[in-house]
């Protein structure tokens, strides 16, 4: 029997789990707002982008492209490529949301960011054996927290500029939170391989523009994990041994 939680307690749990990321996302949002303020882009464009696009990396890159006078086609294509990884997030979250109504899925899709994906999927996986049926409230709590942080910090950055010294390294809180989420999830050999290959390829391909290196590294890591998990390598070894043994 699944443990039962009220919607409200799960909403709060989602908010609490996301708070460590706020320290990191808020300076990033302020920097984005400040960039819009100094780049000669109309304030309306900066203010509209945070709620309409709601994707940090894509917003930064397109703001820089706009300043350089890029065309609409370039901006739209760039957005597509930079945000391609969200399709992986959607595929990965979907099996945990099969009982959810269409309306909820439309709503939760809007809040899908790197951060909320990381926080939500680790909770879904923790509870995978016996998931509470209202776990989407946890996701919503995380999404709302990040969303409010992003909108408010964009506005503050646009109006007052960004005065947080980079030497504080607050942006480091995002990878640190991801470490806390991913390390406990690496419990078998296949997951170790997926993590090492994904991480190694990301460093090798990190120079590729538009987060393409990240997407390629993720795919390679996933395939490496699958190879161990499904025993592709063993089967092939066994097959070649069988061939060798043939007289």
């Amino acid at each position, binding site marked *: 029997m699944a443990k039962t939680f009220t919607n409200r307690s799960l909403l709060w749990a989602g908010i609490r789990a996301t708070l460590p990321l706020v320290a990191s996302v808020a300076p990033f949002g302020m920097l984005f707002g400040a960039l819009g303020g100094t780049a000669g882009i109309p304030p309306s464009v900066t203010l509209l982008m945070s709620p309409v696009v709601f994707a940090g990396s894509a917003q930064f890159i397109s703001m820089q492209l706009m300043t350089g006078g890029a065309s609409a086609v370039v901006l739209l294509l760039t957005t597509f490529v930079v945000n391609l990884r969200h399709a992986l997030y959607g*595929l990965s979250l979907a099996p945990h949301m099969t009982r959810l109504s269409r309306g909820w899925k439309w709503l939760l899709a809007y809040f899908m960011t790197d951060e909320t994906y990381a926080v939500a999927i680790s909770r879904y996986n923790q509870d995978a054996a016996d998931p509470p049926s209202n776990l989407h409230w946890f996701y919503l709590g995380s999404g709302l927290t990040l969303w409010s942080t992003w909108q408010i910090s964009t506005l503050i950055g646009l109006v007052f500029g960004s005065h947080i010294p980079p030497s504080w*390294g607050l942006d480091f809180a995002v990878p*640190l939170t991801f470490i806390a989420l991913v390390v406990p999830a690496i419990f078998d050999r296949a997951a170790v391989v997926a993590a090492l290959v994904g991480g190694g390829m990301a460093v090798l391909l990190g120079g590729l523009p538009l987060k393409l290196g990240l997407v390629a590294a993720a795919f390679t890591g996933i395939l490496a994990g699958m190879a161990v*998990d499904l025993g592709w390598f063993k089967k092939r070894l066994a097959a070649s041994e069988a061939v060798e043994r043939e007289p």
Partner: protein
Amino acid sequence: MSETGLLLVVVGMGVITYGLRAGSLLLAERLPNKAWLRSFLRFVPVAVLSAIIAMELLTPGGTLSVSPLANHRLLAGILAILVAWRTRRILPTVLVGLISLWILQAITF
């Protein structure tokens, strides 16, 4: 581009981003229930997050630096990985990582 033009582009960017997010979430239910697909989905979070972590730890500021003595973020990150492994909790991991980064920056300046 005019202000109106830029605003329209922003709306287009929003449609594309939301399309990727909602499209994958809603169309996934039509995918077949196969062992290879379950295995694929299992490794998405581990592979993606490890890739992001590796880039942040090993290429701070965009250049590769594999020496834990020269690269403060790498050493702080390794300490955080040990804390995450031992405690499995977010807050101690983030605090140890951030505070060790500050200490490393302070003692090497």
